[in-house]
C-alpha cells in the first residue's frame, strides 16, 4: 500500500488481515483521497477487498477507482470475474 499525495496504490493480492488494515487506514482518510490505484501483479486473494472498494465508492461516489470501473477481472486462477454494483 503506497500513499502518494492524493493517490493511494494498493495491491489486490491483499490477505484478509491486510484488507482489515487497509480499511482502518482509509476510513479516517477517505475525504482527502481522490484516487485508488490497484496493482494487479498478484491475484485477488479475498472478495472482502472487492466489497470494501465498492463500499468506498458507494460512500464517496467521486472517488476514482479505475480497477472498479473496469467491472471485470480476468485471471488464470478464477476465470473472468464480473461485478455488478447497481449504482
Amino acid at each position, binding site marked *: 500500500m503506497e500513499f502518494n499525495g492524493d493517490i493511494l496504490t494498493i495491491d489486490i493480492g491483499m490477505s484478509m488481515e491486510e484488507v482489515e488494515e487497509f480499511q482502518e487506514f482509509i476510513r479516517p482518510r477517505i475525504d482527502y483521497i481522490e484516487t485508488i490505484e490497484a496493482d494487479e501483479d498478484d491475484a485477488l486473494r479475498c472478495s*472482502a477487498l472487492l466489497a470494501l472498494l465498492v463500499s468506498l465508492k458507494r460512500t464517496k461516489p467521486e472517488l476514482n477507482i479505475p480497477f472498479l470501473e473496469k467491472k471485470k477481472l480476468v485471471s488464470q*486462477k478464477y476465470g473472468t470475474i*464480473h461485478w*455488478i454494483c447497481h449504482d
Partner: protein
Amino acid sequence: MEPFIGYVMTKQEQVKAIFIEEAGEIIEKLDIDIIRFEENCSDFSLLNEIFRGVHTLKGNANAFGFTRLGEFVHHFEDVLDHYRSTQESIEEYNLELFVGSVDVIKEVMICELDAIDTLPQSYHACLEKIKNLISIKKGLSDSVVEQNESVSELKDLAMEFGVSCEEQQQNSIERSIKEAQAKQSEGLSVYKIDLTLDSDCYKRGFDYLLFLNLLAQKALLLESFFNMEGVVEIDSFKNDENYIGKVSVVVLIPLLRSEVDEFFEFLFDNEYEINLIAPPAAEIMEVADKPLANTAKVADSSSINSMSSKSTIRIDTFKLDELFDSVGELVIAQNFIAQNEKIRSIEDESISRTIETLSKITKKIQDRVMSLRMVAIKDTFDKMRRVVRDTSKKTGKELNLIVQGEDTEIDKTMIDSLSDPLIHIIRNAIDHGLESNADERKSAGKNIEGTITLKAFHKSGSIVISVSDDGRGINKEKVLAKAIDRGIVSGDENLSDSQIFALVMQPGFSTTESISDLSGRGVGLDVVRTSIEKLRGKIEIDSKEGEGTTISMILPLTLAIIDGMLVRTADEIYIIPTLSIVESFRPEKEIVNVFKEKGEFVSLRGQYIPIMRLSDVFNLNTKRIEPWEGILVCVETEGGRIAILVDELVSRQQVVIKTLGKTLAMLKEISGGAILGNGDIALILNVDELRPLVKTAHV
C-alpha cells in the same frame, strides 16, 4: 369426508378421496381465476388456465360417476374452448354467465359429494344459457382466428423492448451460458452455480474466490458475476462480514454433477445451487432418437434449462405436525446443551465451535420445517376479490380493490380460519365504511369510486392483515354514546381512541340504523374478534372521521411458536405472550393504591389498573412482596388492562408451545406449556382469564 379411525380405505376409495381433494382445489382456483378474468378479460392465458381446470374436472367427474357435474362442465368447457380458440372478446353479460357457472359447479359438487338428488335451482337455467351461447357462437370462429394471428405477432415484438437493469444482469449470465454451450463438446457439461454465502462465511474460513479457484483448476471456461448490491457504506462496513449477496458462476467443466457437488460439501445447502444447463437446441435435434431427447424437451435457446426443476409432493399435515414436534424437541435439546453450565465451563475451542455449528444447523432445520407450514396469503386474498365484487354489486357501490403484500407467508393452519373474519370485515367496510352513494362521496370531495385496500405485512415478529376503506370513518362520539346507552361502558372511564373504536367489537354492538343482509346485525365484529383471538391474534381499529377506517388483524407468525416474556414469581417461571404486553415497570410506592374490598391498583397516567398477583392465582407458597419491590407487567386483556405482579423479568424468547395434559388443560389461566433450554417446564399464561380473579384475590 374424513375416514374414521381404524377404517382402512380401499384403493378405489383412496383414489376417490384424492379426486375429491383435487376437484376441491380446481374449483377453488376456478373461483379465483374467473374473477381475475372478469377484471381483465383480454387475458387469454388465464382463460386457457380456466379451460384446463374445467377440462380436468370434466374427466375426473365422469370417471367417478358424477354425471350431473360432468355434463355441466362439459358444456361450460365448450364455451370456454370457443373463446380461447377464437380469442373473441367476451361480452359483459357472458362474463356474468361464466362467474355464475363457477357458482353452479361449486353447488353441484356439493350435491354430488353428499348424494343429494335435488340439483340447485340455478343448474338448469345456467346450463340452458350455456347451450344457447354455444349454438349462437358456432360458425363464427374461422374469420376471428385469422385476425388474431397478427395480434400475436405484435405481442412478440413488444417483448423485445423494455429491458431493465436486472434483466441486463440476467442477460450477461445467459450470454455467458451461450458462449459455454458453443464450446461444449462430448464429456463437457455447462453448469450455472449460484452461491449465496452467509454473512459469517469469512469467519468460517470460506470465500467465494476459494470456490472459483477450485472450479478453475478443472474448468475450460469459468465466468462469475458478483452481485454487490448489498455492500454497505464504509461507516457500517465490517471487515469480517460478507456483503456479497450472490455470485452466479457459469462453468464449462468435464465433471459430473455429483463431482461438482463435492466442491461445496462444506457449505450449508442453502448457500449453493447447482443447475446443469441442457445442451443447445441444435444438439438436442441431433440426438432426437436417443432417450435423452425426451428429457431435453425445451427447445427455446433463450431460456436457461435447469435440470433441477421444482417438483411437489403431497404430505399429510399430520406428518408435518409430527416433524415439527420432533424439531421442537431438537431445539430444546440443543438449547439444553448450549445453556448447560457444565458444558459451558469446558474451555475448549473445538467444543464451543461444534456447539455453535450445532446451534446454527438446528436453527436452519427449524426455519426450514417452519417454512413447510407457511403458505402465501395470495390465495386467500384472491378469494376476497370475489367478495369485493359481489358486495360491490349488491350494494351498488363502485369501488377499487388494492391488494398489497399478497406474497406474505402465513401458517397454513391459520389460513382456513382467516377467510370468514376477512370476508366479514371487507363486507362491513363496503357496506358501512364507504359512503352510501356517489353523491355523498362527491360532496365529501372524494372520487366517486371508493377504495378498499387489503394489505398483509410483517411487523415486529407478527403478521398484520389490514382492510382499509376511504369512507366515512367512525364517529367516536356516536360509538361512545351507543356503548353507554347499551351499558357496555359507564361513561366514567377515560377511554383512548383505540379503546373507543374497540367498543364496536363488543357483543351486540351496532351503530347502523338499518340492517342489511351483508352486515349490521351487531354480531359480526364480535365474532370476528373471537375468531382472531382464537388464533392468538388481536384486532386494532384506526379511524379518522371523513377519511376512512383501517381494521388490522395482528397475528402470530405461527401457531406452534409463541414469542413470550419469561417472568419469575416464587421460583416458578411463567410465560406471558409478548403480543399482550403493553409495558412493564417497577412502580413507585406512591402510585400503588389499595381500595377496600377491591384490591390493589396502580395509577398509571390517570388510569387505575388492577394489580394481579400470580402467586395468588396459582396459590404459590411464597413471601408476599410489595408491588414496588417487584415488577408490574401491564397486559391488555378482553376486560381491559391489568398489571401482573412478578418478582422479575427473566428474558424474552420464542418458545415451542406444548399442549398440556387433561388435568392442567382445565386450568383456564394457562394456555399451554413450553420446555425451556435448561429442561424446565414453564406455563404460558392465558391473560384473558386472569382478569376475573382480581376481585376474588383481594376480597
